[in-house]
């Protein structure tokens, strides 16, 4: 399940929903990305995306995860628009029979998503504002899966 939305979402409720009704799955691995307050300097984070292309690239990442591992279900939820410290930006949940696949697929999806889907972060900080650059660490983590 892929969803991009402006409204805040409830990560726990989304994960419970993912876990419900899949009685063969023993393992749910998940990642939630939260807005950090950067030592109190971050006022707001704005996520921009390319509508259409973003949904399609997330669906491709999800499909690739299903090709690489045996998974029962995957949820990718990405919020866009302006958000405050502590709010959830992104959620990746992977349900599988066993935890090795669930963890690997969850890391794969978030690593790919960070550098492989058309989203851009803009920080509004008390010490300035600007677009966030892709980090070297994110680029390296994405390359692990090539």
């Amino acid at each position, binding site marked *: 399940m892929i969803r991009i939305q402006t409204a805040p979402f409830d990560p726990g409720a989304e994960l419970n929903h993912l876990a419900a009704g899949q009685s063969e799955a023993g393992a749910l691995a998940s990642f939630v990305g939260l807005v950090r307050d950067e030592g109190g300097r971050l006022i707001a984070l704005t996520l921009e995306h*390319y509508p259409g*292309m973003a949904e399609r690239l997330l669906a491709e990442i999800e499909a690739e995860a299903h090709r690489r591992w045996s998974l029962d279900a995957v949820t990718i939820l990405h919020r866009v628009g302006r958000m405050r410290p502590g709010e959830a930006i992104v959620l990746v949940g992977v349900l599988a029979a066993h935890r090795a696949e669930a963890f690997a697929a969850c890391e794969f999806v978030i690593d790919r998503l960070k550098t492989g889907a058309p989203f851009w972060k803009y920080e509004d900080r008390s010490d300035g504002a600007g677009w966030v650059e892709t980090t070297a660490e994110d680029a390296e983590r994405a390359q692990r899966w090539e």
Partner: protein
Amino acid sequence: MTILYFSWVRDRIGLGRETAAPPPQLATLGQLRLWLAGLGPGHAAALSPGLPVRGAVNQELAAPDHPIGPDDEIAFFPLFSGG
């Protein structure tokens, strides 16, 4: 031809979307980018060669030699920083 801009590419150009009618001899995404960069100072600050800008044709990431046509949806944007 519809052209979309995102993130600081859009900020520098001052537009998120424009319709352009480039000369018909422009056959590739890279040629289009160069032509757009010449439209004015905002376009130059966003799209000049050397700036870390990627392009898409019809919502697929595309290399500079990718062919383009008048009905394509073109987009230019920086490296992604989502998640």
